[in-house]
């Protein structure tokens, strides 16, 4: 790990002959040798600055007694004492813990099993199932929660139907457990993506070796895949835990009738909706930041020496799929059933809802079919503009974020440990901040830092905010894949006389292609759906679909909200199919 840069420095120093005419003075040569290292440090520090920029105003805010923009601020610990003394904060913390634990278990387990089955086994309809399984990432969690609530809530369509036919209803969705399961299911595709890119890099030869040594297929999987997937597993648990803590849509929709308050709704209510107490919000964000950093450090100790997970070496082959025969149909059917229940039926309900003025068992559906919802969405210039804005932010911002993540990965995993630690720590900082707080933080950052005023009210500030918000997710996706690529191949390029940039372009980039595509896709859909971070940053000309959808929902008519999410689905699904059909 440590020797890469030192290695290249020594290569040059050890007398690679310099072209004639170039000064051969010792100082210049030393500078040339140090250039890659200086670049790395510069990038790592810039990345840190970018990712903590929303946190700095917040940390400052948490220790002063007035909003940042007011004069006469005094340093105080009052925000923290107020926070810890609040019984709602205490109960919200306990609820959030269980919510996050259950959500993480569901998301990780479902994502792992699905990735194992769909990435390693030769199942009938594998590609279709895979795309279908990933579909929930294209639907806003907000709208998925609404569909679930209408279908699977107590007294919902599925509940009524089950009671009528089988004489028993569904377990109560309007509960902490119900919320957590829904949250876990809606983030399972993210876990899948994490596991899939890591699993794709484990060569089948390892399993074959286990099988040849007499292990059962099950034993081979558990013995080979599970240990090798450990970095992804730990990243996944970390990511899901934080995703669940940050989850706002599900508690907003179901938390009300479930009578459950979690940290995100606590922040939403006490920080934004009720009294805009930024001191309290900032203090809570700082507490969350500390909690998550503790978690990151714990994860680092659990992982230990990362070189043990290197599997894509120079000699390994591309993986093959395990043939399944008849049993494959059963497995496919089970996966299909899961997809139908969690995704397909709610999505169809959503589509149906977008084409009707309402849905009720009391009125035949044919009498309420209408195109009004779509006419409404396309009838206003502002709504159309928000769709176009979203496309620009998702594509341009998504590409920018992918490049930044790739460079971040190179700097982290092809550098001395000090830089690696710095980049890894920075990458996870934004995850500790709820989206809406990222929005406020960036907003303040644009005020405080020079040049920021040019950014406010533009699409660029949205791209920056979204990139900061989703950087940990993208980094978590790319990081493990990068770890699995043996540096020997890059060293081979270097030994053969290629520059470092050449080694990255010729070796790293092609090998990382699936992970990079997954990374871009994740950014694209995350940016497309994001509303929390945008709500403080969008201006009259820079509204995005996420904020428009939230406004439509809050105004109370589900029809246009459903229509807009169908538009989102139509715009994002072909991209996903295009990307995954090639894989």
């Amino acid at each position, binding site marked *: 790990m440590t020797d890469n840069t030192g290695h290249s420095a020594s290569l040059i120093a050890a007398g690679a002959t310099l072209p004639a005419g170039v000064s051969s003075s010792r100082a210049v040569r030393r500078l040339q040798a140090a250039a890659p290292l200086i670049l790395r440090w510069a990038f790592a520090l810039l990345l840190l600055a970018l990712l903590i920029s929303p946190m700095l105003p917040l940390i400052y805010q948490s220790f002063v007694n007035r909003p940042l923009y007011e004069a006469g601020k005094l340093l105080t610990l009052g925000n923290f004492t107020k926070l810890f003394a609040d019984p709602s904060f205490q109960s919200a913390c306990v609820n959030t813990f269980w919510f996050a634990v259950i959500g993480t278990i569901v998301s990780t387990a479902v994502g792992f099993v699905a990735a194992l089955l769909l990435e390693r086994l030769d199942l009938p309809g594998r590609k279709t199932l895979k795309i279908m399984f990933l579909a929930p990432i294209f639907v806003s969690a907000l709208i998925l929660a609404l569909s679930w609530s209408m279908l699977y809530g107590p007294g919902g369509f599925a509940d009524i139907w089950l009671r009528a036919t089988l004489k028993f209803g569904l377990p109560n969705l309007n509960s902490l457990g119900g919320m957590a399961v829904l949250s876990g299911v809606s983030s399972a595709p993210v876990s899948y993506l994490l596991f899939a890119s890591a699993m794709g890099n484990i060569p089948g030869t390892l399993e074959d070796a286990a099988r040849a040594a007499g292990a059962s297929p099950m034993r081979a999987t558990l013995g080979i895949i599970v240990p090798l997937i450990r970095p992804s597993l730990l990243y996944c648990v970390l990511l899901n835990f934080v995703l669940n803590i940050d989850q706002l849509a599900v508690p907003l929709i179901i938390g009300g009738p479930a009578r459950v308050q979690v940290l995100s709704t606590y922040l939403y209510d006490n920080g934004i909706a009720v009294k805009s107490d930024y001191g309290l919000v900032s203090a809570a964000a700082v507490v969350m930041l500390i909690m998550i950093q503790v978690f990151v450090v714990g994860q680092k100790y659990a992982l230990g020496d990362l070189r043990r997970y290197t599997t894509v070496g120079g000699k390994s082959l591309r993986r093959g799929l395990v043939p399944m025969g008849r049993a494959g149909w059963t497995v496919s059917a089970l996966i299909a059933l899961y997809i139908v229940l969690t995704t397909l039926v709610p999505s169809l309900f959503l589509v149906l809802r977008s084409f009707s003025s309402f849905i009720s068992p*009391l009125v035949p559906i044919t009498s309420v079919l209408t195109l009004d919802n779509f006419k409404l969405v396309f009838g206003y210039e502002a709504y159309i503009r928000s769709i176009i804005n979203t496309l620009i932010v998702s594509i341009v911002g998504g590409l920018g974020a992918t490049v930044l993540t790739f460079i971040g990965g190179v700097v982290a995993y092809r550098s001395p440990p000090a830089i690696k630690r710095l980049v890894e720590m920075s990458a996870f900082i934004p995850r500790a901040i709820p989206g809406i707080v990222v929005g406020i933080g960036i907003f303040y950052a644009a005020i405080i830092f020079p040049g920021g005023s040019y950014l406010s009210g533009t699409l660029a500030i949205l791209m920056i905010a979204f990139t900061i918000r989703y950087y940990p997710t993208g980094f978590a996706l790319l990081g493990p894949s990068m770890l699995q690529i043996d540096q020997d191949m890059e060293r081979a390029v270097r030994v053969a006389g290629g520059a470092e940039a050449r080694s990255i372009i010729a070796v790293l980039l092609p090998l990382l292609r699936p992970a990079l595509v997954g990374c871009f896709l994740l950014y694209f859909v995350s940016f497309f759906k994001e509303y929390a971070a945008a709500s403080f940053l969008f201006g009259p000309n820079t509204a995005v679909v996420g904020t428009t959808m939230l406004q439509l929902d809050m105004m109370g008519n589900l029809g246009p909200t459903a229509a807009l999410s169908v538009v989102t689905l139509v715009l994002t699904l072909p991209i996903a199919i295009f990307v995954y059909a090639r894989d």
Partner: protein
Amino acid sequence: MTKNTIDLGRRRVTQGLGLLTAGLMLSGSGFVEMAFAAQPEYYPKDYASVIEASKAEHGVLVYSNMGEMNWAPLIQAFNAEYPWIKVQTLDLGSSEVFDRYYAETAAGTNQTDVVVSHSAASWLDFIQKKGGVNTDFVSAEADKLPAYSKPSPGIYTISVDPYFIVYNKALISPEEAPKSIQDIVDLVTKDPARFAHKVATGVPMANAAAQNLSNTYIQHVGVDKALQQYTALGDAVDVYRSAGQIMEKITTGEVLIGFMLSGIQVFPLLADPARAQILGYAFPTDGTVMLMRHIAMAKTVKNPNSAKLFIDFVLSAAGQTALSAGGLMSYRDDVVLPDGPTGYTYKKIETEAGASSLVPTTFDAKTMIPPQDLIDKVNAALHVQP
């Protein structure tokens, strides 16, 4: 409180009388009126210069908690009269409107001309602590508006939202149909099993506007009575953050009765004839809270003439007629609309439910933000986790 409302109502009737005739007359001065619709006679003599000056400005930027579709008919009507003024609206939460204003003012990037919100407590902060309202601004319509709609200098009312009861007509028989909150309480007490989790309302203490709303009702019926009602409703009630969800669930029959639901959200849905077959509604006789949505010119106003024209138009009879097409409810007595869910005005509800049933929200500290103790009691009664 109740007595006050009646007096105000009476005064408004007399105030409205002169307007129709005034609106028909032309005030001929200069060529500006030749090209555009004439202003009513009671408008200031120099109004033509305001119109002229607005042409050199850059439109109007409005921070509001109203949606695009609420604004559209109003802005369309405004632009028919002043086609050169581009109105941009930014739809935010009821207190976010102000938070954004403060933060942007601090940054020196504030471009806001007009502010619209229904969060009374946030307005008080805005007026008293931050001096955000342009108090020099006096609308040309000021004298034609009811006194209750002008709570503080420079602050006017764009619309009034009634909060009322909606129920599923197919599942609640006409004899059972609730006419008041107490009727709902009686239904639930009589048959708790049938109504368990079948009654819905918004989170009563969710935010400043909701607290204002709930507390106005609580103070109207009396704290003890209100707490008794909340306690009796107890387990029967599920609370939701969005009225949209409640309306969907009443339509499916998952929820039988909803109460304290906002007109701006419910009226447009009731206008759908198919939905109207299923949904019944009533303005509760023991307290139909009328939430005032206020409008003011911001101190930071960059386009004062355009902003003046805009607010004057919003408050005019023509503007108030136009905004009802966007789902908002007018409070001017000289606005006459065809009957139907989107044709309600303050006066019509007053006639239908009785003047003593209506409780407009005010800037009175007593009804504004409830004491923590009361918030806790209401939350405990409804088993809402604070």
